[in-house]
């Protein structure tokens, strides 16, 4: 088991290295000289001296691989540099934003689970009826609906017309401000989980031991409740790790629309402002988090499911 963990950790390293290179090169993919763009002001183009001074200050005058290595070294020491725009530490901005994203994601996850598991169970029980069809349609819609549109519809209804909830913003992270973003963010995750719960339960219900339990004369509720659902939940729980991807991806647009100061919002803003150090740092950060969490999910999945522990999963 430890061997497996060790191997998996080793495998991450090339991926992270690649990510660091990608993050770093973000600044250089952009057309135009970053220094020139940043220093551009209403008075006109910046003078060559100003550009040079800026470049030296930001370390942009070195050859690219040197810059990369310097940057990497600093990163490994936890120094992600300073924002081009605000000249404040990137790392601080990122960690603050990430806390906000974490909060929102957690609530979204809860919303998603609370909705999807009962719906999935309902759909499976009422297999092949109108209710089942409705649930499946709902799930399909949940996956197909653009999150920015959903956000607007919710805002339109609850904030503009009904005036029950605030339109956007963090508001100190209170429930009021969290509801609409959480619903929006949790939708696609809920949709996928509903379908999974449904198919998982359907599969569990067709197993032999269920037929045995029924034959024993146990009441339907116990049959379904105790045996089938318990077993059906296993793949769903393990798949919750996948939902991570949905949440993080959805966060980009959702946070921005609702003005929720999370890391998605941060990345969008820093791209608008061409704050390259911020872009580099946040991409790297989110990748590291993503990879680490996936690794943890993988390991716990393998732990819970001994059958694949000894097979090579490639």
């Amino acid at each position: 088991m430890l061997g497996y963990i060790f191997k998996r950790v080793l495998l991450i390293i090339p991926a992270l290295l690649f990510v660091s290179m990608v993050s770093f090169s973000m600044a250089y993919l952009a057309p135009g000289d970053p220094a020139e763009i940043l220093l551009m002001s209403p008075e006109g183009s910046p003078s060559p001296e100003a550009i040079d001074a800026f470049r030296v200050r930001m370390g942009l005058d070195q050859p690219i691989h040197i810059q990369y290595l310097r940057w990497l070294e600093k990163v490994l020491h936890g120094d992600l540099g300073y924002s081009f725009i605000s000249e404040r530490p990137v790392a601080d901005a990122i960690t603050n934003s990430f806390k906000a994203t974490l909060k929102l994601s957690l609530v979204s996850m809860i919303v998603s689970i609370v909705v999807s598991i009962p719906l999935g169970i309902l759909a499976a029980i009422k297999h092949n009826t109108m209710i089942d069809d409705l649930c499946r349609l709902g799930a399909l819609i949940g996956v197909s609906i653009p999150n920015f549109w959903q956000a607007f519809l919710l805002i339109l209804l609850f904030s503009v017309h009904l005036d029950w909830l605030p339109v956007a913003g963090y508001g100190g992270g209170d429930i009021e401000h969290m509801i609409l973003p959480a619903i929006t963010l949790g939708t696609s995750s809920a949709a996928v989980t509903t379908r999974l719960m449904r198919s998982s339960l359907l599969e569990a219900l067709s197993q032999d031991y269920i037929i045995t339990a029924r034959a024993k004369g146990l009441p339907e509720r116990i049959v379904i409740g105790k045996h089938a659902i318990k077993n059906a939940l296993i793949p769903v729980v393990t798949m919750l790790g996948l939902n991570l991807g949905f949440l993080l991806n959805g966060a980009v647009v959702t946070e921005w629309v609702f003005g929720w100061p999370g890391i998605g919002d941060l990345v969008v803003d820093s791209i608008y402002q061409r704050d390259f150090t911020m872009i580099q740092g946040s991409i790297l950060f989110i990748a590291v988090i993503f990879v680490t969490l996936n690794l943890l999910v993988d390991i716990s999945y393998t732990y819970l499911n001994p059958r694949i522990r000894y097979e090579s999963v490639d």
Partner: protein
Amino acid sequence: MRAWIKNRNIFIGLSITVALIFIAAFAPQVAPHDPTEINPMVRLQPPSKEYPFGTDHMGRCILSRIVFGSRISLLVGVVVISGSLLIGIVLGTISGYFGGLADDLIMRLVDGFLAIPSMFLALALAGTLGPGMFNLMMALIAVEWTSYARVVRGSILTVKEQEFVEAARGLGASDLYILVHHIMPNILSPIIVIATLGIGYAILAAAGLSFLGFGVQPPTPEWGSMLDDGRLFMRKAPYIMIFPGLAIMITVLAFNFLGDGLRDELDPRFRKEIPH
């Protein structure tokens, strides 16, 4: 094959898709007005007989813009998926069929790309490459190819071990022959399914990125950027963003229906065809 039409999902998905293709192809005939015609006199009109979906802040007919926008969305979807498929199939085949060092390298590359959540990567790429539809498509291809490479690789690994492949080798077939005539036909099913679902996803992602301002630039009518336009007028003229969003959803739904239906059809039949 005719039985496929009986599948409800395929039927719905295919119908909507065909309708979309028709609308896109005959956009000039279908749209009541010129999508880029600016007319300040009629700005922010609610839906009426003259302008069935109303007009936007520049007086342009929203319905016409949506009709022409279908061209953009379908184009982006198809191009992105084609590009991703091409790269994915080539790399996936090398990886899965020939294995060895190439496999390791390619898989590490895939891991690298997958380390960054797709939207962040697409955003970063689109944002830094600069605006424009081409850059948008490149960014999305860079994000999407990994899924196809993996699926192709996995399918090939399974099929490669089957006896009929060994039998073909025993008959004297070369690797290339086996790949083209035996392996490809047998891995088509999963590829078709993910490609179909992928078009839906690509359209969604493209709309999202355009909404944020990366990608298709005004005055090109793209559904996502139309929503962005509508943001400021949410109270006064909500229809500016309601209709484009609806268009996106229906389009993506169509491909999801189709993909789901195809998956149902192709999967159990595949199992039936290889007994034992």
